[in-house]
């Protein structure tokens, strides 16, 4: 088996692809990549299409090497990766729905994003205006005595995003959960095509509202890689500040919400007060509670002044003062621990196979954190720990968040202390020839990947891959054997994105 770099050398390497290599390979090399994934040597970072090409981003985690391999498929067929490596299955189904490219030998050719409602098929390739194919969606079966099904969604009982869950249960115990997603598919990658950078970064920031900073960050870094833009130092540091504030707010909210789903509302109420403090401080500092549209290609649009610094400092002080008591409360409440410990266990082997990002991976023994593994600036100059646990239950996912709250507090302190002066933005120039860039940024939920090709200042193709693509399937595995009543708890502890996944 060749190394990842050797693999890319077996194809035609593209000149203008940064910062990692991209190589156009033939089917045999594509299959070598598939077996490298299947053997667990490499992990799948992304798989996406173009009208007559499929691309696959792969990482060799121990070496922190990344490569993109591309396969031209003018006859609209390519050898399935999912056949050897199940994490690719849903991505292949999405590629088929959007581009009409067929994954040959795939064990699951059912549609995924296409619910037969668009009035057309293959919208991003040679679209076919078509009528409904009329076939109902075929859910996977579960057979046995006394099994019953529970269908939930797309409209859920809480204030959450839409998706459909099909449970098959034996009494109270879940035998099989099957998800059906795609309800929030807005066609963002279609809207990206031909967009200028201003519009494109705005769209990127609206892929998943809770990760608006992470997406704008990843998109901007991909543009900067493609166009070789050097971002001013102050902007680099402010971006990390924004990213950590986002992480802090959502982790605080999640810790409370998970406890709320175990009917422990006191934690929910108190955590959400801290969360609201962070949002208000973010608003004071950057003019928007979720800090939307602040990160743009070349830098940031909003500077941090004294008032903003003080607001952030005050919110942080408050968390330092109040959060430890809440953590103690969580740790010492037996009735709450009874719900979270040993519930919804995700085995480390599955987390590794799916390259599960964020707290989901790190609660199941996978130490990947893009801030550490890829050490993009300014994280290469900041000191922080990446907490990892092996239990993989709801409790572990709570603790990872608690530890990451502490790390984010420390990171924000460091950033505020060392924030350099200087300009906020380098103006992106235009280049006539096509340029390609890839970026991976650690959002609160996990690693967000953005790949794009620019031509003449416009997007020719942009793919945005949410961490949820590799987390949603694991929820199906983690819930097996648990009781139906624990599903909200497990689901919240995963907190996967619907919109980020559906695009």
């Amino acid at each position, binding site marked *: 088996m060749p190394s990842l770099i050797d693999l890319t050398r077996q194809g035609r390497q593209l000149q203008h692809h940064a910062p990692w290599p991209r190589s156009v390979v033939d089917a045999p090399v594509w299959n070598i990549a598939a077996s490298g994934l299947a053997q667990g040597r490499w992990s799948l970072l992304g798989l996406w299409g173009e009208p007559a090409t499929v691309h696959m981003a792969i990482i060799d985690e121990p070496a922190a090497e990344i490569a993109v391999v591309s396969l031209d498929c003018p006859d609209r067929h390519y050898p399935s990766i999912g056949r050897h490596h199940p994490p690719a299955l849903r991505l292949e189904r999405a590629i088929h729905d959007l581009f009409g490219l067929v994954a040959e030998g795939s064990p699951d050719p059912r549609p995924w994003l296409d619910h037969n409602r668009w009035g057309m098929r293959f919208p991003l390739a040679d679209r076919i205006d078509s009528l409904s194919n009329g076939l109902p969606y075929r859910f996977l079966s579960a057979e046995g005595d006394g099994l019953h099904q529970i269908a939930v969604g797309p409209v859920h009982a809480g204030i959450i995003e839409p998706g459909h869950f099909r449970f098959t249960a034996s009494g109270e115990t879940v035998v099989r959960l099957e998800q059906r997603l795609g309800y929030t598919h*807005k066609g963002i990658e279609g809207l990206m095509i031909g967009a200028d950078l201003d519009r494109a970064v705005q769209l990127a920031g609206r892929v998943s509202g809770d990760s608006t900073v992470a997406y704008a960050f990843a998109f901007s870094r991909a543009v900067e890689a493609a166009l070789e833009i050097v971002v001013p130092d102050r902007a680099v540091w402010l971006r990390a500040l924004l990213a950590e504030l986002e992480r802090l707010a959502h982790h605080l909210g999640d810790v409370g919400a998970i406890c709320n789903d175990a009917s422990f509302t006191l934690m929910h109420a108190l955590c959400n007060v801290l969360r609201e403090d962070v949002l208000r401080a973010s608003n004071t500092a950057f003019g928007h509670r979720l800090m939307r549209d602040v990160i743009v290609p070349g830098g940031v649009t909003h500077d941090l002044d004294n008032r903003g610094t003080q607001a952030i400092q005050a919110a942080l002080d408050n968390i330092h003062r109040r959060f430890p008591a809440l953590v103690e*409360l969580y740790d010492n409440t037996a009735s709450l621990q009874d719900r979270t410990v040993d519930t919804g266990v995700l085995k480390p082997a599955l987390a590794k196979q799916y390259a599960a990002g964020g707290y989901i991976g790190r609660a199941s023994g996978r130490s990947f954190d893009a801030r550490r593994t890829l050490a993009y600036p300014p994280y290469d100059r900041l000191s922080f720990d990446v907490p990892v646990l092996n239990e993989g239950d709801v409790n572990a996912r709570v603790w990872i968040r608690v530890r990451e709250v502490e790390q984010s507090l420390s990171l924000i302190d460091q950033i505020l202390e060392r924030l350099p002066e200087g300009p906020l933005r380098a103006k992106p120039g235009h280049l006539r020839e096509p340029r390609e860039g890839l970026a991976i940024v650690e959002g609160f939920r996990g690693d967000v990947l953005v790949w794009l090709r620019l031509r003449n200042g416009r997007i020719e193709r942009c793919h945005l891959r949410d961490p949820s693509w590799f987390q949603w399937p694991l929820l199906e595995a983690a819930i097996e054997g648990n009781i139906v009543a624990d599903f909200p708890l497990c689901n919240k502890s995963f907190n996967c994105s619907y919109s980020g996944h559906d695009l």
Partner: protein
Amino acid sequence: MRKLLFESLFRRPFTEQAPSADDAAATELAIAVGLAARRRLGRSLSIREIDAGSCNGCELEIHALNNAYYDVERFGLRFVASPRHADVLMVTGPVTKNMRDALERTYHATPNPKWVVAVGDCARDGGCFAGSYAVAGGVSQVVPVDLHIPGCPPPPINILQGLLALLDQTAKNVAPT
């Protein structure tokens, strides 16, 4: 836990913190919403939230209405789990074609009289997602809308303001939809 609960007996509630300009506005608004809601619907207004393809930004801010700072339940504004219990449907998102059916069915499952509030810029006309093959382009394309609350996403305070506007408007109309 006892310590925390004990503290909260003596601590001033978060909802009455020494007001900055923003907090004062919240309190004033809250009183106004309370009066209008009571006149119209006694003490209760039940809201069913539907995400019709939003980015989840609006959901985060609607959620925030329930935190201790805003605490909308004190005015009888309540988020309910079923459209069967709802007076108001609060809809977010550009309405994706994949959610269109579900939105229509939820609307029809809500008993009359009912009002529809569209929250967020993309709920008005599709916003930045308008023109996509996958979106219907705004809530009013699918169900009748009584009120839009603009913003991307609107902060919780604006959503409260919007509810007040709705209550004023419906108080004037004799026969709501």
